[in-house]
Structure formats: C-alpha cells, structure tokens
C-alpha cells in the first residue's frame, strides 16, 4: 500500500513538474515578448491564440521541426550532452519548491542546499556547450560564464545564510512557515534581498549580465552552433531556471505562499512572476555590463557587503 502511494506520488510529481516547466516556458516567453513590446512602442505577439498566448507553442513546433546541425569539428558526445546537463538539473531543482502548505513535490530537509547545488550544474552545461562545438565565440562565452560563477555564487550564499539563521532550517517549506508569525524576511534583510536579486540576475545569465550570450559581441555566445531543438533546450533551461530562482526568492524573502484573501498557490505564483517581471524590466532597460566590471562589482562590492550583512545578522542573533 505504502509502496503504491509512493509510486503514484512520484508519477504525479513528475507530471506536475513537467507541466510547470512546459506551461511556465510558454507563459514566460509570451510575457517577456509582451513586456518588451510594450516597453518599445510595440504590441508583441497578437496573432496566434488569444492575445498571442500560443505564439510560444508555434515557435516551439517550428524549432522541433528544424534540422539539428552538428558542426563537423564538434565533439559530438559533449555537444549533445551539454543542453541535457543544462536542462535536467532545473527539473530536479523544482522538487523541493513549495507552492502551498501541502503542494510540494518532495519535502526535503536540505531543499535549499539541493537547489543551490543544482544551480551550479547549469554553468557546467554552458562550459560543455562552449567547449564541445569548437567555435571561438562559444568558447569565449563559456569562459565568461565560468569566470562569473564565483563572483555571484559567494555573495548569493552569504545572502541566504542570514535567512537560515533567522529561520533555523534548510527546508524551503519550514522557511515559509517561519515567516507566518513574523514579518517577511525581506523586511528583516533588505540588503540581502537586494543583493540576492542582483545575484540571481547574474546566475540566470540575464541582461545586464548576459555575457555568456552577449549578442552584439559574441553573436550568440555559448549556443552559437546550436540549432533547432538543441537550442530550444537551452532556452527552456534558461526560462525554467529563472522560474526556480524567482520561486526561491519568494520563499526566502517574500513569505512564499503566505498572503491574505487568495489561496496559497496564487500568492506563490504572483510573487514568482513579480520577480520574473523585474528581471524582464532589467533586461529591456539596461545596457550590458562589461565582464571585468561585473567581476569587480561581484568581488569588491557585493561580497564585502553581503559578508558584513551576514556577520551583523549573526552578531545580533547571538546578542539576542
């Protein structure tokens, strides 16, 4: 009996996560194009489906039907492996994300650690993509992605630590519960909140930190040689990763599913798409930062501030 429940639960989780990934990609790409359009005196997609909602589906079908081109000098196994390594971890990273008190694929004591660890694999995928296709633009893009990873990962972790101190747990669900009877952690930790926002923009390779792609410099960066479905896997991974990062941000800082009037999942989705909208707003407003500026920004400004913030929090907690 317990065995059967576990199997059904696992199947439901897989189905749910696949649905979330698919529907999110359809919706976020549509949203991004609409947001970009309205910021640029345009309308964005309007033709396919109501208000152009099915445009992404049509684009997806087009990408699936296209030929996948393998460069002759590419390292084929790595070339094929790279998009998969980018995509699979984000599926797994959705496991511990709670959408309400009881909607969660799998409750983990170390859910937060798992998400952070899987986030690193994204960069491995980019590195393999850049290395495997034997293209100088792609290699430059990949090397940029690897160079930037430490510059944002350490401040990111140092921003998460105060939250763990406040809530006393690594479980994403427990972190939300800890905010139930107090203020949202964004109000206790405004500095960490802001730095986290910057860091996830860097982590998801979004403009103004999109060096790995950097269209005007590196053509398309690490995925220059990818076409058809292989390219769309990267695309899917990026948008899903944005979703995961935004979900973690709302869990850590904005109280996850907590909120008046609406049921939990609605609040959770509202907060997630609020963060996604912010990231789109950044992208369609700012020019790209230069690589060395980003590195010195990460190491010389974000790191000391977040370290100081962490030490202060720890000191105050100890004193209390």
């Amino acid at each position, binding site marked *: 009996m317990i065995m059967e429940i576990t199997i059904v639960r696992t199947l439901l989780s897989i189905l749910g996560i696949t649905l979330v990934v698919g529907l999110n990609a359809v919706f976020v790409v549509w949203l991004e194009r609409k947001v970009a359009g309205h910021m640029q005196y345009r309308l964005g997609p309007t033709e396919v489906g109501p208000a152009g909602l099915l445009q992404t589906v049509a684009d997806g079908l087009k990408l699936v039907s296209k030929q996948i081109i393998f460069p002759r000098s590419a390292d084929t196994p790595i070339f094929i492996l790279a998009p998969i390594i980018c995509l699979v971890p984000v599926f797994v990273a959705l496991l511990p994300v709670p959408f309400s008190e009881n909607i969660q694929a799998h409750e983990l004591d170390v859910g937060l650690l798992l998400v952070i660890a899987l986030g690193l694999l994204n960069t491995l995928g980019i590195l393999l993509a850049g290395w495997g296709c034997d293209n100088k633009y792609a290699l430059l893009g990949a090397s940029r992605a690897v160079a930037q990873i430490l510059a944002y990962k350490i401040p990111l972790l140092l921003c998460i630590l105060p939250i763990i101190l406040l809530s006393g747990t690594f479980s994403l669900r427990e972190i939300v519960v800890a905010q139930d009877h107090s203020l949202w952690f964004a109000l206790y930790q405004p500095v960490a909140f802001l730095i986290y926002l910057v860091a996830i923009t860097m982590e998801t390779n979004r403009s103004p930190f999109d060096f790995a792609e*950097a269209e*005007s410099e590196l053509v398309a960066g690490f995925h220059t040689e990818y076409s058809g479905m292989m390219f769309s896997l990267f695309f899917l991974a990026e948008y899903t990763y944005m979703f995961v990062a935004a979900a973690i941000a709302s869990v850590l800082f904005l109280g996850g599913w907590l909120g008046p009037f609406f049921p939990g999942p609605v609040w959770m989705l509202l907060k997630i798409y609020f963060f996604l909208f912010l990231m789109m707003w950044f992208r*369609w407003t*700012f*020019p*790209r*930062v*230069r690589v060395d500026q980003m590195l*010195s920004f990460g190491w010389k400004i974000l790191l000391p501030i977040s370290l100081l913030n962490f030490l202060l929090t720890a000191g105050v907690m100890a004193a209390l």
Partner: protein
Amino acid sequence: MFDSQTAATYNLETVGDQENDFILNLGPQHPGTHGVLRVVLHMDGEYILSADPVLGYGHRMQEKIAETLTYTQVLPYMARMDYLSALSYNQAWVCLVEKMCGYEVPRRAEYIRVLTTELNRISSHFLWFGAFLLDLGAFTPFLHAFEDREKILDLLETLTGSRLTYCFFRFGGVGADVDSVFLKGAQDFVDHMRSHLASYHDLVTGNVIFQERTRDVGVILPFDTWGYGLTGPVLRGSGEKYDVRLREPYSIYPELDFEIPVEQTGDCLARYLVRLQEIEESLNIIEQTIAGMPEGPIRSKVPKIIKPPEGEATMSVETPRGELMIYAVSDGSKIPYRVKYRVPSFANLSIFSKMAKGQLLADALAVLGSLDLVIPEVDR
C-alpha cells in the same frame, strides 16, 4: 559604483605567449559590425592584441561608375553610398556641378535644401543612437529612436517620394516645393523632439552602466585626429571645433544661428554627447529655416544637357559622419573625366586598429559603434 579605473587595458609587453593567442574573424557577418565589415582580431583571451579591418565586401566601383555616366545620371548613385545621409551626398554633388557650371540657386531652394538635409542628419543620428546602444547590449533605445526616426521618414516621404535613398536635389534647385502641411509637420516634429529628447537622456545618458561602459573607453587624442583625417562628431568629441558648415560655409549656413557642439574628453561618451547635442542644433536650424522660408522659385533655368567647362572642382559638405569631399575633373564633355569621393567613414575607420589594440572585445565593439560607420560608404 564600479572602480574609477574602468578602462581595462592589456599590457602589450607581455605578448609572446603564443599558445594562448588566437585569431578571431569578427564579421563579415556579425551583429556588431552593422554591415559587411570584417575585422581580423588577434586575441589573447578577451583582450585584443591587434585588429585589422578588411574592406571591400561592398565595393561597387562608385568612382568608376561616375566616369561612365552623365552628371545627371550620377546623382541617384549618391544616395547609395551613405544611405543614411543621402541628402548630404545629394547636396555635395549638386553644389559641385553648380560650382563648375556657375548655376544660380534660388533662395527658397537653398532653404529647402538645408531644411531637408538637417532632418536627414537627425534621422541618421537616431539610427546611430539605436545601433550604438545595441552594441552596448541595450535593445530598447533602438526602438525608441526608430519611433522618432519614423516621423522624419514619413515627413520626407511626402516631399521627396522616398524614405531612405533620396534623389531630391536638382542642379540649380530642388525637385519639389514644400507646402504648408510639410512645414507644419516639420515644426510639430521640432516641438515634439525638444521635449522628447529628455526621455533619451533619462533612459540612456544618466544610466550608470552606460556611463561606465563609455567613459574613458576608446580615447582619441587631439594629436591623432588630424593624422588619421578624422572628421565629424568623432573629431569634435576630441575637442576640435571643426565643421565644414563653419569653416568652409556653403548654402545658407552662414546666415543661420547655430552652435558646433564640442566635447573635450575624446572617449565614446564624448562622441555620444556630441551627436545628441547635434540633434538639438539641427532642430534649431530646422526651426530657423521654417521661420525664414522665403517665397520664390525653387529651381533656376539650367540646360538639359550639362557640360561643365574644362577644369576641376572640389566641394565639401558636412555629413552626419563628417566631411565629405567630392573632386571632379571635367574635360568639357557631358561625362565626368574623373570623380573622387573622400568619404568620412573610411577615414574614421582608419583609427580603429590603433584604438582597439589592448582593449577588451566588448570595448572594441563599443568603439566601433561610436565611430558611426556606414559600410557601403567605406567600401564605395
């Protein structure tokens, strides 16, 4: 926000580590070169050791073509070199032939020429503004600039019949007269842009990332400007107050009241500021020509077949990119014996190798964008 020493440059003395160097072909198909320009980059990681532009992918033998056609037939070819400032090219050729033959130009025609050329200058600067920001990775300013550029193109379309490759000026005048609708439209555009330029500054000029990306990047010293023959906003960004409209005035420019914007620092930011101020000055010029538009004919009597007397002549005009000089030799027949174009983009590109040396790839593309090159003009 960032370090004050933003201009990261490579120490060229450490070159020699041959194992890590590589050659990167930037172009001829690359989103950062805005045309079929190819730059062979010798790189060490992200740093550029040397950059060699390779020209000629768009070479169309413009000078040779001009030697096989009559003076009138050459006129439409003018718009095909710098397709963003076709009217400045129109003006250079038309003024040159008028100079050779001694034709008179009615006052009203001169006013229409200046009015339309300055509108064309603004539209060219708008396109540069968008393309430069694209090079820096910002997409939205491009479409904002295009929205305003569209207004100019619509205006000029009603007058000249074309939107980009105008062939509007005639020897001894212009092709069509302006009416009150056009003049009102131009005045409305001036009023709109006066207030709307502030949004450009809000969106871009004040942005910290933009300033850090352009300040102290690609500095051109005043000493180099003359050696490389730089003109236009690239020269004026380095503190030289040189503008053909000021130094060798033509048409009615001496009667108009306008400033020549100059910036001292010589970096990408200075060139950016010069161009944005030029848009404002062009708005002033347009307003003055609308207010002072005289009545009268728009074309003087010129013979059907143009045969300039034997001799040679040069004519310089200020295009949005710098000084365009056309030199023509006539042997008394209806076909020019020799035509030479001295184009601003070609001269401005020549300093690129020097500026790119030791720069990061991202900076080199910002520099390339700030030079405002039109590749068909470079290649001719």
